[in-house]
């Protein structure tokens, strides 16, 4: 392992009080083969430029904090290695499609607000007392939603979704995958409550299946599938509403 190896990190900088738009700044970072891009950013902050701002926490692809664009690809900075970008430069910028607060820090409040609308929690059919026991489920039933339950809210899928870039109203891949995670849970009876989100223009119908969200997901969630699984059911509900105008009026008047 040679300590003398260096790689250039070109990092997008944006200071909200000084810059009209982001600019690139280059740093020469010594690296070893076991160093992640996140460790490269940390080296810059510790040794070269303390003003560089980015989010991180766990360093092991589970907290979902360090998402950024690396060479144009949405990645967790802790999940990719500097050695794979040699000889560089490695282009590091804030996650695409989100407002940038400073350097690599984006404002994710839009996602958090959407997450609150999708009822991403178990809604059992009826209340049970402790004496009645737990809500049971077979391993087979669990496989229906297990992949979607792996979401860590890192927002890489939003950065990979041009529809979200064009239409920020779109509920988006991450929140809809979490919605589908509960819809597919055998212990859940809240699907009907979630129909309003699914069937809306900003729901699954804003998705045109670009499919890149599923390719970039570091946890194998496959949001494109989660979203599009809802389309047959949503179409059927639309058709039924159309056949029964009385019902449509009722729902429209909510």
């Amino acid at each position, binding site marked *: 392992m040679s300590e003398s190896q260096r790689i250039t990190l070109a990092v997008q900088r*944006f200071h*909200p*009080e000084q*810059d009209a*738009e*982001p600019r690139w700044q280059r740093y020469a970072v010594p690296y070893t083969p076991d160093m992640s891009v996140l460790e490269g950013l940390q080296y810059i902050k510790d040794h070269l430029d303390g003003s560089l701002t980015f989010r991180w926490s766990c360093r092991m692809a589970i907290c979902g904090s360090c998402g950024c664009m690396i060479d*144009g*690809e949405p990645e967790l900075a802790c999940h990719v290695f500097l050695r794979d970008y040699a000889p560089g430069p490695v282009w590091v910028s*804030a996650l*695409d*499609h*989100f*407002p*940038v*607060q400073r350097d690599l820090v984006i*404002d994710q409040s839009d996602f958090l607000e959407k997450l609150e609308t999708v009822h991403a929690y178990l809604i059992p059919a009826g209340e049970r007392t402790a004496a009645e026991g737990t809500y049971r489920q077979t391993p*087979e039933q669990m*496989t*229906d939603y297990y992949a979607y339950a792996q979401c860590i809210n890192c927002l890489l899928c939003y950065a*990979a979704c*041009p529809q979200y*870039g*064009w239409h920020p109203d779109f509920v988006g891949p991450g929140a809809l995958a979490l919605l589908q995670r509960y819809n*597919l849970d055998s212990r859940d009876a809240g699907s009907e409550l979630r129909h309003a989100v699914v069937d809306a223009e900003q729901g699954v119908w804003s998705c*045109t*299946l*670009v*499919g*890149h969200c599923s*390719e970039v997901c570091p946890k194998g969630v*496959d949001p*494109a*599938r989660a979203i*599009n*699984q809802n*389309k*047959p*059911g949503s179409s059927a509900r639309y058709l039924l509403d159309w056949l029964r105008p009385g019902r449509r009026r009722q729902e429209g008047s909510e």
Partner: protein
Amino acid sequence: MSRARVYRPTMRGWWERHPAYRRYLLREGSSVLLGLYALWLLAGLLALAAGEAAYQGWRDLHGSPWLFGLHLAALLAAAYHAVTWFRLLPLTLPVLRWRGRRPTDRAVVRGAWVVSVALSGGVWLYLLGGVR
């Protein structure tokens, strides 16, 4: 000191940012040629309704190399569109179970191709029978 604000990125040149976006545009764009071909068939149908001379005129247009090129492009676009369409099919289905198991994506795609080829073959045989 001015007030803190955010930078809002634009979508200018978005398709240049990733090959996946360009593949998506190619996939969706292939349907334009399919639409044009459908319009051309519709024109033929209208010509047929207008009478024998009009229909013969529509058929005679097919000698043009331009039209041959367009037909070839439409055929390639149709093939590409079909391949991508079937590849995405498993994503658009609700959770399926068959004998207590979920079919793999590959099985779904293969099944769809088999059904498609069988139906197309059926139509083909019917047309051949009609000509005879």
